[in-house]
């Protein structure tokens, strides 16, 4: 490995999209330049793949740390990458690339494109920064960039419903951030450092740690939209432009879940209790059921997909009871983390494909009221095909990524001796089948009283259905490449933990 050092690349994961944001803001009147954004997204993808490859090729099997400006913790700000962070960055870059290509032909109005691209790149900056952050206050700043960019992107749609959803999203986001910040303030007061690794060594069970953990948890749960704090998500995700909905559901809510996992299972694990972990699991199980039922009852296509996100996020929270309270030396690794990380990736691809397909159908039909979508399969075959494949992954049918994810999750539940979570996983799959087939059933039947109107159907640019289709294909391919993904995940996990897992199996 000559010259190419992994830590030196880490700042560029944040810097490259930041440069792209500035460039697309400065050159916003240059309409022909919008395809350059796709080039930028390709560069980001190449960088993420390079980082992931270097991480996987490193023989130490350890996470990598970069000290910004050479200051180092506790005064300076560090960036840290391990297998989990690396995979999150890779999925962000991969989806970012496909969604950028899609957006190039989705936002054809110069005004819209000029407003979209700087915000889009800021969203990428914030996502990468969240995954790399090794400092509790830096996480606050990146969460706020993420929140503000996401709100502005939802508001791009214009119209009262989108603006009201954006405003509600903003207030909820600010409330979540402030709860988080108060938690961080209490941590700093108690332990005098903001570095996550140092905090992890210092934190012990005490009233101040519990208060901080509670505030951080509530703040991040609000942003992750776990039941009963999910009320803001369906309107915001359903009213945003299609590529924005896809990014919000696939990536943005996962960022705050990622942080929850870091805080509960690594940094603040000394202050957690087994009961607290079970409560998170129960809320997740409830979210699976309630979200699915609301998806079945929803009357708009994009609302169905948005409620499906509420439900699918619930599965992720099974991580907490199944992982249990880690021992002192444990890192974020093992079979349960593998299952959940895999679930995140599979759901991200499937949900992005679904939102793009729903957006195409909405644009082609002029509405997304599912009672009037009879026979849409004839007019939008490729988009509906993508919707069906993504739906199969959400249900958990083989050979999709969703099947492998659920299989891993079921195995982890049995290994942990907590079989009752199986009921949730299986019931959630059946309920998902109901809402997916409800859409497919309507799409393939011609309504008797309403002959398909051929006159007012706008022709979609070819890239739009292709984007949805490409993501659906990735969802299926994920099902065939599970092992490699799981190997990367174990980077940065202390070997002790792996050995302990081996014995347990």
């Amino acid at each position, binding site marked *: 490995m000559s010259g190419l050092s992994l830590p030196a690349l880490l700042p560029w994961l944040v810097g490259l999209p930041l440069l792209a944001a500035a460039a697309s803001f400065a050159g916003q009147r240059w309409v022909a330049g919008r395809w350059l954004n796709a080039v930028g997204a390709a560069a980001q993808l190449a960088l993420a793949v390079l980082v992931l490859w270097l991480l996987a090729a490193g023989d130490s099997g350890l996470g990598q740390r970069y000290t910004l400006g050479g200051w180092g913790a506790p005064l300076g700000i560090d960036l840290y990458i391990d297998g989990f962070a690396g995979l999150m960055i890779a999925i962000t870059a991969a989806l970012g690339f496909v969604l950028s290509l899609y957006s190039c032909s989705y936002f054809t109005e110069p005004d819209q494109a000029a407003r979209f691209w700087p915000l889009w790149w800021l969203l990428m900056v914030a996502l990468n920064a969240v995954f790399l952050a090794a400092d509790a206050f830096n996480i*606050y700043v990146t969460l706020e960039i993420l929140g503000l960019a996401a709100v502005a992107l939802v508001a791009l749609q214009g*119209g009262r419903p989108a603006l009201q959803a954006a*405003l509600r999203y903003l*207030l909820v986001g600010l409330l979540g951030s402030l709860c988080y910040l108060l938690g961080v*303030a209490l941590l700093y007061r108690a332990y005098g450092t903001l570095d996550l690794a140092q905090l992890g060594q210092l934190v012990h069970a005490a009233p101040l740690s519990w208060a901080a953990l509670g505030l951080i948890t509530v703040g991040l749960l609000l942003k992750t939209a776990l039941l009963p704090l999910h009320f803001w998500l369906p309107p915001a995700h359903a009213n945003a432009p299609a590529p924005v909905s896809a990014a919000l559901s696939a990536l943005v809510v996962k960022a705050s879940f990622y942080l929850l996992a870091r805080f509960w299972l690594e940094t603040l694990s000394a202050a957690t209790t087994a009961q607290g972990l079970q409560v998170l699991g129960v809320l997740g199980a409830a979210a699976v059921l309630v979200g699915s039922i609301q998806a079945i009852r929803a009357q708009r296509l994009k609302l169905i997909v948005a409620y499906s996100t509420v439900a699918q996020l619930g599965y992720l929270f099974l991580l907490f009871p199944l992982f249990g309270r880690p021992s002192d030396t444990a890192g974020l690794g093992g079979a349960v983390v593998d299952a959940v990380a895999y679930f995140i990736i599979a759901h991200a691809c499937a949900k992005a494909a679904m939102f793009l397909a729903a957006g195409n159908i909405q644009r082609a039909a002029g509405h997304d009221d599912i009672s009037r979508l009879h026979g849409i399969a004839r007019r939008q075959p490729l988009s509906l095909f993508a919707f069906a494949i993504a739906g199969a992954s959400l249900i958990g049918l083989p050979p999709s990524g969703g099947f492998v994810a659920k299989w891993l999750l079921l195995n982890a539940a049995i290994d942990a001796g907590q079989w009752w979570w199986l009921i949730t996983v299986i019931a959630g799959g059946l309920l998902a089948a109901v809402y997916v087939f409800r859409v497919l059933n309507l799409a393939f039947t011609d309504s008797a009283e309403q002959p398909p109107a051929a006159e007012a159907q706008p022709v979609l640019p070819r890239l739009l259905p292709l984007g949805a289709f490409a993501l659906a294909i990735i969802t299926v391919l994920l099902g065939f490449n599970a092992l490699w993904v799981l190997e990367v995940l174990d980077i940065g996990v202390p070997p002790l933990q792996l050995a302990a897992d081996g014995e347990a199996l």
Partner: protein
Amino acid sequence: MTQDLFYSICGIALFGIGLYGLLIPPHILQKILAVNVMGTGVFMVLIATAQSRAPAIDPVPHAMVLTGIVVAVAGTALALSLVCRIYALSDDTEQDAGR
């Protein structure tokens, strides 16, 4: 009761008042102001923390507060511009525009 503990408790009280203002009153401007009150409460806790390691004054919480103020200004500006836009699209100001 030491000075920094007093200010910390006041900060947490402000946070609570702001939380009430965000959740209960229906008017959207009140909610936006309430978020700012909550933020001020957090900043007060941070400033008190800087004082708590006497005799030296810790500059790190001050830097955090400065950053927090910038974020609060940006968030408030975005919220107000959204409210203006919603107001322009409708003629009913007393709408419960968000929560």
